[in-house]
């Protein structure tokens, strides 16, 4: 059973292994990165910072998820366990143990990585669609554990989480300071994913996505690579979840519920799976959309479901995937496929 989504196996969408025009594109890529970063630095002057922080958290979450689906071809239906789990751990560490915020976030992410190690170890025993079902089932188990564990306070969640002072110096209760802290975490996580994807390790991951049997026959211990990628993805998703808990000063069951796992899939799909920038674009769109829908009184789930169906039926490359394809057509003067 091939486990690579069709558009992810499309080299134009993958963002790597480009035959021609590669240098031009990477040049374009770094220029874009600088512009986006500068934009993000001044953005809170124009846009409500809490809204921006929310987008950044989800963008990082989707980027972590995409590391797995886009580059290894593993569809995890249980990433909420890492996102929400880390939110609980961070919130507990910051509120009850009085951890410094960065340490609390790292503690949350490490906790997510441990959950990821367990879930990943079990899930990679099955392939393709079974992998998705196993991750979904195990994350549901994590949900019930958090529902019943005393430290999570059940339906109430952990409320009034203090943002604290970053390395004892910067007071994060100031929204703008908090924004730059979130931006820092985002840039770190985003860069980490970028680095992983472009490392030799990342290339093996993509080889597994393209043809797992071939990778096995070349002597790669595929399970270890998969598990490694799974744990990294869980850790970075945990960074996002822990940061979100500090931003909103609350950790609730919403973040561990299966709906959250679905949302991150949608963000990645809409933005373009297997592209570095796609998940962030998708996250921005979905969060913005949810904001508008919440005010409009339209049923959010229905709209989200419709976008899901449309994406799967006619828009499998996603926004960034389509953009890259168009750029390539231009660059080469002939249609690629």
């Amino acid at each position, binding site marked *: *059973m*091939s*486990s*690579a*989504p*069709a558009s992810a196996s499309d080299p134009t969408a993958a963002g790597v292994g480009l035959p021609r025009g590669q240098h031009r594109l990477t040049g374009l890529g770094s220029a874009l990165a600088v512009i986006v970063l500068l934009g993000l630095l001044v953005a809170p002057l124009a846009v409500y910072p809490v809204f921006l922080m929310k987008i950044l958290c989800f963008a990082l979450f989707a980027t972590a998820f995409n590391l797995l689906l886009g580059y290894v071809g593993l*569809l995890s239906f249980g990433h909420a366990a890492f996102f929400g789990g880390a939110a609980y751990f961070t919130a507990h560490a910051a509120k009850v143990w009085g951890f410094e915020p960065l340490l609390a976030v790292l503690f949350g992410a490490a906790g997510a990585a441990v959950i990821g190690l367990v879930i990943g170890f*079990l*899930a990679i*025993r*099955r*392939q*393709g*669609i*079974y992998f*998705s*079902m*196993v991750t*979904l*089932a*195990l994350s*549901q*188990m994590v949900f*019930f*554990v958090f*529902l*019943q564990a005393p430290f999570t306070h059940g339906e109430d969640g952990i409320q009034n989480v203090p943002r604290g002072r970053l390395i004892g110096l910067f007071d994060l209760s100031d929204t703008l300071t908090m924004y730059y802290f979130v931006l820092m975490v985002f840039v770190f996580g985003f860069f980490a994913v970028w680095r992983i994807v472009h490392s030799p390790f990342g290339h093996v991951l993509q080889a597994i996505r393209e043809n797992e049997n071939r990778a096995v026959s070349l002597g790669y211990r595929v399970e270890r690579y998969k598990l490694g990628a799974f744990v990294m993805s869980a850790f970075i998703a945990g960074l996002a979840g822990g940061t979100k808990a500090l931003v909103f000063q609350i950790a609730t069951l919403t973040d561990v519920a*299966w709906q959250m796992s*679905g949302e991150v*899939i949608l963000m990645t*799909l809409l933005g373009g799976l297997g592209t570095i920038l796609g998940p962030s674009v998708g996250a921005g769109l979905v969060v913005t959309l949810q904001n508008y829908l919440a005010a409009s009184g339209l*049923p*959010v*789930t*229905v*709209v*989200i*479901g*419709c*976008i*899901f*169906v449309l*994406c*799967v*039926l006619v828009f*499998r490359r996603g926004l960034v995937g389509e953009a890259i394809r168009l750029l390539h057509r231009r660059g080469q003067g002939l249609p690629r496929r």
Partner: protein
Amino acid sequence: MTTLLGVPLPALYGQLLIGLINGSFYALLSLGLAVIFGLLRVINFAHGAQYMVGAFVAFLLLRFGAIGFWWALILAPLTVALVSAIIERTMLSRLYRLDHLYGLLFTFGLALILEGLFRHYWGAAGQPYPSPPELAGGTNLGFMFLPNYRGFVVVASLVVCIAVWALIEKTSLGATLRAATENPQLVQAFGVNVPLLLTLTYALGAGLAALAGVLAAPIYQVNPMMGTNLIIIVFAVVVIGGMGSIVGAIVSGYLLGILEGLTRVFYPEASNIVVFVIMAVVLLARPAGLFGKEA
């Protein structure tokens, strides 16, 4: 009072009955999932939503048409099967040539739409649905009191499971179906209309889910989220049983329902997660599932 390991026997029987009822629904739903997956290679995430819609159709028939349980037992599955057939024909069938993950994602989107719609119009609260008057009351079995309707559900689901098993394993239509599972191109070359077979199979699976929904309506309340919470457990059941076999889906459905019931007696805190724990153990010991063949 007689006890077993400190648990009074009536409580044990009561929980066993609840486990058997839940197991009946696990079996019906995982059976439908297995039938659909066998031929279409699609994990039907919308299965829970179709189950919920089945229950809602019964509820709406009663509320607006004064049409009772027995008619609903026929009409609701037919309605859901028809709508599902249209969805399969117009949308889902376009995804077969792609990776199977897209089928899962499509049906996930479908599930969100269905649940969102019903929650928008009917709210998240449960709507009561009376059990049919013919099955009111209960029977004293000597060691416990059995509500008639619950006994009916257990028998009905067993009958349906055996009927579907016989349809697939013992009839010529079933033989064609199994052949198409093995090699669709070859079967098509023999002049069998495979796309039609796919549509009918999806409709059958969805109809089974709706049937389960109607059966469930008087036991659990009719509410928009009733399907999703169930379907995730059913996914675990399917992983435990192994997708390959119809018998596996049925047997593990009942078995896990009963195990869950037992857990509720002896260690209630774990009753929510026991199915998932068993899944983890099965994955460690027999990755292909209890009844599955090594993939």
